């Protein structure tokens, strides 16, 4: 059979071989994964029906409850949002573990978000997920790992000098720091017993211009999402950064929160002519979906 193979036949065989290589090694097996790439997982617990005492009696109805368990930072405040509005807060333990229970809610689909605030008052990015809550059962959401906070000590750094990248996460966790411009650099450090991490990044590998950095944490089998990004410039001089919290773009009424009030103000200006610069979050002269997306990113509830 192979004696009669001509050039065309060889070409076909090579293509088949490349096809199998591509399918099994380069392309993911599923076209879509409708599940999030996260350590968060859900377990639904249905309480056993209670037997009423003989002769009849009252059997209390089962409560619909959601319990959130995860890690933030040692002694940090953890805020829970339900459908974009604050419903509960708690304080994490010294080990950064926390638990929040929500009872008596209606069954249905919810968007839950969690964030924390570190010892310097910096806020983490939101960890958000949708969840179907079933009537009369307890839904346990575990594996929540809130992203680290992050900041830098310089708004501009002289090329070749170090810039300090720091923040807070779970104690003794692996912190992956990403520094980006055209090329992305990754580096690792370990947070201390208080969850604080610090890394001095050598900027000699960066080009002049604008860059940003973000971080994520890993401990045991849990991985957090990425933190907010913090910008800095690489230039010819060093300028220390003033104490400024992560940009609260979207805080239209100046109450240091980004919530329904700001959303309503922005909704008023949606597709109206000549919006003020306060509401035009990306300064393109109009209020459209992009401005709402920026506000949604910095949401605090």
């Amino acid at each position, binding site marked *: 059979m192979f004696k009669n193979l001509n050039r065309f036949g060889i070409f076909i065989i090579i*293509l088949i071989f490349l096809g199998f290589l591509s399918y099994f090694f380069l392309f993911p097996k599923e076209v879509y994964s409708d599940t999030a790439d996260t350590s968060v997982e859900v377990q639904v617990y249905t309480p056993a029906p209670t037997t009423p005492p003989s002769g009849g009696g009252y059997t209390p109805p089962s409560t619909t409850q959601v319990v959130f368990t995860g890690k933030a930072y040692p002694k940090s405040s953890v805020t829970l949002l339900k*459908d974009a509005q604050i419903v509960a807060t708690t304080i994490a333990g010294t080990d950064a573990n926390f638990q929040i229970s929500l009872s008596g809610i209606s069954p249905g689909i*919810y968007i839950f978000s969690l964030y924390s605030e570190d010892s310097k008052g910096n806020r983490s990015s939101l960890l958000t997920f949708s*969840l179907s809550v079933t009537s009369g059962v307890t839904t346990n959401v575990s594996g929540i790992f809130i992203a680290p906070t992050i900041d830098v000590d310089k708004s501009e750094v002289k090329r070749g000098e170090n810039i300090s990248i720091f923040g807070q996460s779970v104690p003794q966790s692996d912190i992956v720091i990403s520094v980006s411009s055209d090329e992305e650099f990754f580096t690792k450090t370990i947070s201390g017993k208080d969850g604080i991490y610090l890394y001095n990044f050598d900027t000699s590998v960066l080009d002049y211009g604008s860059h940003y950095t973000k971080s994520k944490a890993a401990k045991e089998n849990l991985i957090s999402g990425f933190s907010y990004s913090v910008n800095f410039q690489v230039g010819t001089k060093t300028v220390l950064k003033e104490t400024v919290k992560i940009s609260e773009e979207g805080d239209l009424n100046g109450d240091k929160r980004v919530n329904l009030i700001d959303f309503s103000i922005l909704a008023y200006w949606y597709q109206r002519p000549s919006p003020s610069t306060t509401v035009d979050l990306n300064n393109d002269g109009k209020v459209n979906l992009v401005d709402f997306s920026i506000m949604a990113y910095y949401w605090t509830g």
Partner: protein
Amino acid sequence: MTKIQKLIFILLFSTFYFLFFSFFSTLAAELYLDTSENQYYIDETFITNIRINVKDNESINAIEGYLKFPSDILEVKDFSTGNSILTFIEEPKINKEEGLISFVGIIPGGYSGRIPGDPGQSNLLGKIIFYSISPGIAEIMFEDISQALLSDGEGTPAELINKGVTIEIQPLDDINPIQNEWQEELAKDKIPPEDFNPEIIEIDGKYYLAFSAKDKDSGIDHYEILEKNFFTNISKLLGRVKWIDSESPYLLKGQSLSDKIEIKAIDKAGNEKIVKLQATHSSPWYKNYFIWAILIISIFYLIWRIIVKQKQNNTRNRHEIS
């Protein structure tokens, strides 16, 4: 080229065609529709769910969807936002003549997909309630201008693939009973909308009321507002309470913020939730109409009493003289 070679070439080309487009489709989020069945009869009402999937390591926080449907075959009865993961920027729009539907909203914090173990399909954006008016093949499709934005702080557009749905509408059948999926859902909805917290906000020097309620069943149908002041209290005594249909943000009539405000959220099944808002400013006495009304009535009463007494005195004096 021999027949076998041609066959191999066609098979290989088809394989690579499929793999090529599969590769690029894994790089995109997916906006899609689903129905419980893909065949209905005339006069039936069915629900089309709008859903979203996102690709790995991606988070989406803003979605704008535009849909087209054949208005000669289908009629839109309603758009339900119940159980939607979106916070809608404005009410979804329906153009029945042109066969167009649009919706726009955000997901604060971003949506990264369902989490493992989630017992339900929690990627719902909304439900369109269709009524079939004539037989035929109805294609309900997303327009290419639909978009989803990444949760990256910059509103970067996400790569998006849209998947519509094709429904076959068959002529009336005397055997099968006419289905009304929406009526069945409304009949099951006995729960009022959830509690909500309205806020008074200032825009361009004027006071507005901002509010947003959620309903986990049939969805919010509309809101009504009652601003309580002296005049509305009188109306209430006369049995004429006037609630006003409204949307958020709502321009308050009482700009002095001395009125008490009630906001009613009504879902599609008619269940209501009323929330009351206390006045944020206590107004000085001279701005209270009720006090002025009492004062004016009192003054007129005093004057009337003085006149009556004067007349009585005059009459007594005339009697004494005579």
